[in-house]
């Protein structure tokens, strides 16, 4: 195996934070590809520039996504990484594993790739970093036998992901893992065969703390919430205060709608004015909890800057009981309605959020058959340039008369 000097990368083995360089070096003990990566990366550090070329089209038979083609522009200097493709593997919901499953993945990757991974990629997939085209089918065959499948890439449904949900969180207002699995399984075709104008991401967060950042990056953000009253254990509240919690400074004054009162003995919440921000519940985990009438808010349209600027998702459905089969099915019908419209009218590389921005939320709602609600806007319009729809009834009558 070639021996590469890595004086710059060696600097990144120092310090208390775990080092990615040590990980690459460990893999390089047995993998020529990982060793080639060390060589090329050191070159990047010296030259202050990346050395990967634009992806080519590679994949497994019958799939249009899941593999990112990657080639070095220094293939002659570092032949080990001349071809260095990425494979995205759909993670189990909530990123739960058994040691046995992890070892199976490691064995497959040891036999067919660089031995380097991301646990996990930004979207949530298990990422296998670096293999050659002729290894893709053998890897895919072993993965599927072991119960794994590829994730999304390109203009398709990207691998759905979710927070830990009811598996380990008392605040989960719906079963994020179950909904994630349901959408993942029902949309296998849309996930593996890109047919959209651009990518479409689902992210499931169990409460408004939004631990998977769905409001910032999911085309459809499903965020848990509740409609009834926050549950209060007054004894436990008093215990927090007895143990030193400054109720006025740290809870009452931090409430965004000032809907809480502390008498020195009893905590009162005007739930009709609570916006479900979670702060008081976050502070007093033992004393407060979301109510029992739980469900989710559906928001639409988040994305990173490219092309038309970054957007956060905005409210589409204020509340649904998503744990119920029927409601989830009706949400799926709405999703498919949105996809049909976006596929028909959307421009290439236009995310749903940008599409809505271009056609206007009002027109978008008309097209998918939803009524406008005040919950959908931060405030009504400030400008008087109102597109009053022209009543064309008279015209119709004229036409009728002509017939």
């Amino acid at each position: 195996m070639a021996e590469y000097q890595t004086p710059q990368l060696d600097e990144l083995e120092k310090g208390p934070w775990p080092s990615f360089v040590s990980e690459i070096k460990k893999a390089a003990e047995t993998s020529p590809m990982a060793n080639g990566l060390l060589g090329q990366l050191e070159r990047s550090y010296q030259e202050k520039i990346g050395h990967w070329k634009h992806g080519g089209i590679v994949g497994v038979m019958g799939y249009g996504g899941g593999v990112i083609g990657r080639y070095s522009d220094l293939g002659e200097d570092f032949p080990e990484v001349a071809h260095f493709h990425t494979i995205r593997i759909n993670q189990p919901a909530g990123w739960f594993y058994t040691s046995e499953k992890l070892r199976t993945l490691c064995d497959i990757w040891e036999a067919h790739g660089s031995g380097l991974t991301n646990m996990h990629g930004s979207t949530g997939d298990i990422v296998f970093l670096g293999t050659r085209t002729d290894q893709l089918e053998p890897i895919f065959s072993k993965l599927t036998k072991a119960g794994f499948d590829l994730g999304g890439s390109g203009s398709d449904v990207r691998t759905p992901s979710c927070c830990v949900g009811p598996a380990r969180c008392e605040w989960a207002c719906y079963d994020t893992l179950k909904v994630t699995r349901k959408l993942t399984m029902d949309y296998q075709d849309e996930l593996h065969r890109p047919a959209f104008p651009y990518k479409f991401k689902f992210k499931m967060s169990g409460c408004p703390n939004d631990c998977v950042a769905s409001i910032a990056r999911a085309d459809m953000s499903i965020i848990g919430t509740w409609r009834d009253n926050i549950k209060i254990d007054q004894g436990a509240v008093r215990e927090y205060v007895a143990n030193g919690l400054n109720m006025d400074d740290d809870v009452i004054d931090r409430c965004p709608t000032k809907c809480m009162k502390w008498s020195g003995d009893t905590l009162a919440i005007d739930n009709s004015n609570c916006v479900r921000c979670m702060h008081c519940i976050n502070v007093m985990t033992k004393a407060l909890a979301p109510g029992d009438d739980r469900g989710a808010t559906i928001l639409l349209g988040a994305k990173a800057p490219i092309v038309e600027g970054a957007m956060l998702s905005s409210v589409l459905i204020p509340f649904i009981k998503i744990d119920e089969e029927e409601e989830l099915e009706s949400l799926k019908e709405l999703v498919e309605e949105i996809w049909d419209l976006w596929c028909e009218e959307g421009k290439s590389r236009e995310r749903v959020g940008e599409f809505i921005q271009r056609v206007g939320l009002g027109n978008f709602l008309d097209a998918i058959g939803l009524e406008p609600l005040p919950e959908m806007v931060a405030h009504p319009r400030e400008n008087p340039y109102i597109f009053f729809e022209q009543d064309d009834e008279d015209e119709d009558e004229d036409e009728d008369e002509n017939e």
Partner: protein
Amino acid sequence: MAEERLTDIGPPDYEDLLPPVIKDNYGQWKYHEILKPGVLCHTGKSGDKLFSVRAGSPRLVSIDKIRKYADLADKYCGGYLRFTSRHNVEFLLTDEAKIDPLIADLKELGHPVGGIGNSISSMVHTQGWVHCHSAATDASGVVKAVMDELFPHFANMDLPAKTRLALACCLNMCGAVHCSDIAILGIHTKPPVVDHERLAKICEIPSLSASCPTAAIRPAEVNGKPSVEVIEEQCMFCANCFTVCPSMTMSNAETDGISIWVGGKVSNARCEPKFSKLAIPYLPNNPPRWPEVVNAVKNIVDVWAANARNYERIGEWIDRIGWPKFFKLTGIEFQKEHIDDFKFAGTTYHNSAHLTF
């Protein structure tokens, strides 16, 4: 007979991967506590307790490391573990007495425990020079340098509120860095260099033209070949043209660099989710340890930690004190680049006489 080729089977069912204590208490957790840095205790309505030990990770891990995680899971957790949305690994225990031995083993393995509560958790980040074609900076190296410096805030819960850091190596922003307390963003500062010789052979000129958000790219004939021209003063270096056409080179070793953004959040706690705003337009790429970037991030964290109230995240703190004071306290110079000039620029001007002196 040929073996059946399995497709569209989806991921393994999570239900088969949950430890028994989670199966027994699924959806029936009552409350949780932070026992100490990096250690959570969830108590079920049943009275069952689940201890989660969270360890930091570089995200880029070898199969050797994953096998070691698996060994630890076998030794302490009946073979069960999970990962978090910020690349941490979490071990799920039912025996409280095993927490400290596990932490000692993790330390031995080089993986510190922390990132819970009012701390800095692992940084969400992208591929950078390790694996991306459009990177304006490395990702893992900058993250390593920043986390080394801020390490005490990962290992201890010594901050006014939680702080979420993230890095994206270009404006494509794989990961939600645009809503982070502090975002480190790789940027280009020069217009694309057009390869007129090859462009028409590998790119579709109309879609290349259409890819530019400021209409700075026009079809043109150059040296007798169909190609494009770039109206350079209209380019804001987003690199979307490079994404659709490899003949539009954006990377530049001398002028690529890093911008720093502050005050974003995704959680709804207290205030609504919000975008990060520009703090520092440009810092040079200075590998291997990016000292300018590390110092800038540390300075912002230090000034915030010294001035914020309890539970006030960076964006909430700035909302209270105002941006002029943020720039004054941090000593960051306010420049023309801080003033927005894209789509909704007008909405970012200060339309009031509310000022502090």
